[in-house]
């Protein structure tokens, strides 16, 4: 029996020694090929569409994290998923006198917001936080967004803990590769182009999309199914924010009426959010035009962003 336990132990160590380099070598192959199916290391600087036609990472997270280091003691901090980094234009807030940073990122769910807040809240030291919420982020498992952070930001104990808790092979493999790149500082000299396809990275973390308009589509009725883990992470984030005595405003960004009205539990979501503090659902506050102010069913175009941000600023004052 002891021989058995000992052998198993030796084998496990051995496998680890074999596995880790293999993952790293495999990932180096060609970062976007299918040969490495369970590694998804998507630096946002990589080609937006890879050789196989698959659309890759969005959000300019790489640039954002790089720029973040130069910001301190700001007035407003924005967090949330793409509606945050595409919906809150730091230039508009600046002209209203607010020094802001947009820490929104692609697919960001409460699990990732928690990690980002833990890392950067103290340095950024905002007076207020605008947290853009949407039912969808509370209903997914968040694996995609962890992948985003692993690739585009540094590796620390908290992100390792998050990865392990999400129990996903893709995350673990990507974490191994990302740790290697982080350890040897291989991303040091990488640079992300300011303009990528139709997106332009704006100082402060906002991403502006070339102006386009939404084409109407009919939506079947659907209901969001919420994920408890996300709510728990959300509560932990709120706790960090309140412990630092920062004012928090929860905001739901507007979406086209045709889409918004097809979701059946909007009111439930509103009620949930109201329990967490000051919450505004801009679908009910603003009366926007579906075909004029949006570029897809989730996101405002630059015209819509202007209206949204100006109203928000009005409410802040």
């Amino acid at each position, binding site marked *: *029996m002891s021989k058995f336990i000992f052998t198993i132990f030796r084998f496990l160590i051995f496998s680890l020694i074999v*596995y880790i380099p293999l993952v790293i070598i495999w990932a180096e192959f060609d970062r976007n090929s299918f040969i490495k*199916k369970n590694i998804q290391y998507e630096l946002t600087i990589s080609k937006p569409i890879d050789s196989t036609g698959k659309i890759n990472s969005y959000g300019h997270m790489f640039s954002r994290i790089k720029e973040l280091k130069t910001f301190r003691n700001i007035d407003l901090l924005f967090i949330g998923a793409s509606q945050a980094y595409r919906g809150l234009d730091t230039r508009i807030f600046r002209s209203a006198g607010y020094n802001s940073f947009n820490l929104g990122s692609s697919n960001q769910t409460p699990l990732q917001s928690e990690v980002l807040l833990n890392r950067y809240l103290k340095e950024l030291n905002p007076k207020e936080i605008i947290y853009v919420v949407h039912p*969808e982020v509370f209903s997914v498992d968040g694996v995609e967004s962890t992948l985003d952070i692993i690739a585009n930001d540094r590796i620390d104990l908290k992100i390792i803990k998050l990865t392990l808790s999400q129990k996903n092979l893709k995350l673990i*493999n990507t974490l191994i590769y990302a740790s290697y790149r982080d350890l040897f500082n291989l991303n040091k000299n990488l640079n992300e182009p300011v303009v990528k396809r139709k997106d332009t990275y704006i100082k402060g973390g906002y991403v502006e999309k070339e102006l386009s308009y939404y084409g109407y589509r009919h939506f079947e009725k659907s209901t969001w199914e919420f994920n408890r883990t996300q709510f728990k992470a959300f509560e932990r984030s709120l706790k960090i924010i309140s412990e630092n005595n920062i004012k928090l405003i929860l905001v739901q960004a507007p979406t086209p009426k045709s889409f918004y009205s097809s979701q059946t539990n909007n009111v439930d979501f509103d009620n949930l959010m109201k329990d967490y503090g000051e919450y505004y659902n801009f679908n009910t506050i603003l009366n926007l035009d579906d075909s004029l102010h949006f570029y897809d069913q989730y996101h405002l175009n630059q015209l819509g962003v202007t209206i949204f941000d100006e109203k928000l600023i009005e409410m802040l004052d």
Partner: protein
Amino acid sequence: MIFNSITFAAFFGIFFILYWFVAKKNLSFQNLLVLAGSYLFYAWADWRFLAFLIGVSALNFYLGIHIEKTNNPKYKKLLLYIGLVQGVGGLAFFKYFNFFITSFNDVFQSLNFNINLHILNIIIPLGISFFTFKTISYILDVDKGKIEATKDWVVFFNYVSFFPTILSGPIDSGRMFIPQLQKKRVFDYRQATNGLRQILWGLFKKMVIADNLATITNPIFENHLQLPSSSLLLGAFFYTIQIYADFSGYSDMAIGLGRLIGFNVTPNFNFPLFAQNIAEFWRKWHISLTSWLTEYVFTPLSISFRDLGKAGLILAIVINFTICGIWHGANWTYVLFGFLHGCLFIPLILKGTMNKKKKTTKNKLLPTFKEFLNIAGTFIQVMFLFVIFRAETISNAFHYYLGIFSRSSFPVTEFETKTRTGENFVFIILLLFLLVIEWRGRENQYAIENLGQKYPRIVRFVFYALIIFLIGMYAPTNETPFIYLKF
């Protein structure tokens, strides 16, 4: 808990430690621990039917003892029938009741009577097809004197509920398994490492091969009406490999787990896709089920029909396999599947070659041309019938066949186009890898049992580590898709 999950790994880890470190001195303690583990496992899967499982075990335990004890032949028969009625009746009710009702309704509807009997909201107790077959074989064996009725209830209850095999088999015969429960298990290094090795290979087959093939075959079967014949053929081809890898992989894990706790569970697969005729196929596919059917269905039937000569054999085989089909589920597709497999035996029975064992020459690198033709021919028969097995209705299966034979090969589908070339390339390599390893290892119980035994252990370690790497790299990961807010 499914075997390839972290929860199960944790459960089994704790169980293993308790079993070999705490319970090791005492047989009763060992058996009680296994029983507790099995009930915990079953309850975790479905607590609602734990009482049912225990009740079935208790009933058959009692019946076994009294069937053996009594001298009154009429009472003996009565007890036997009670057991058979409970077993078959239980299956009929839980698995097939709604099937009977809807079929009944359909028949009457086609005759223009709308009777519309209501189906009930019946939930099927997990593993019922497996443990019922165990209890039925047990009381039949006791009745015929093939086994001594066990007086130890812990032993018997363990036989019925043994957790590595209760959910998906293999179906151990009481004659082979009960004696193992009656002796203290002693830890054996070779047995345990053999078990781990088998589990590893099972994990590979299930997670890398079967689960990935499913991502290809599911869309094909769902959209078969719109696909060209080349895709349909590919779908059938891959599905055959998929179901082999899935089921044999799972059986390997079950057997491996059994080995880790000192039990020799009966084998279930013996490289069936290398069979050279349909009779050999069924000697190698789901062996525990076909052995069961041979002993308790085919043999009595063939004896009763023996005066009918070859026609009698044919009748017995066809009935036998139709029952085999029905066992798989409550759908006419399974009935047809089984029936047609039985029919495939007809040429063999008529030619008298059903029993000729055609072994591929041992240790040869490649099959001979004749062997290859036989293997391919058998594979094709099996592949076509698996379409019926997989289809949701007979009509779907029919349209699938129609699609293969009447539709054109073009346009080619996603699988065949360049956008997925990378992924396809990996798949093909993995399938070739599987083929080579399985062919090489076909004389063993499972493909990698004796792989590399001639070389130093480090070489085998490298190979196993490679398998783990392949699992880590190619097992499906199932995260929830984030549809829009990623943009």
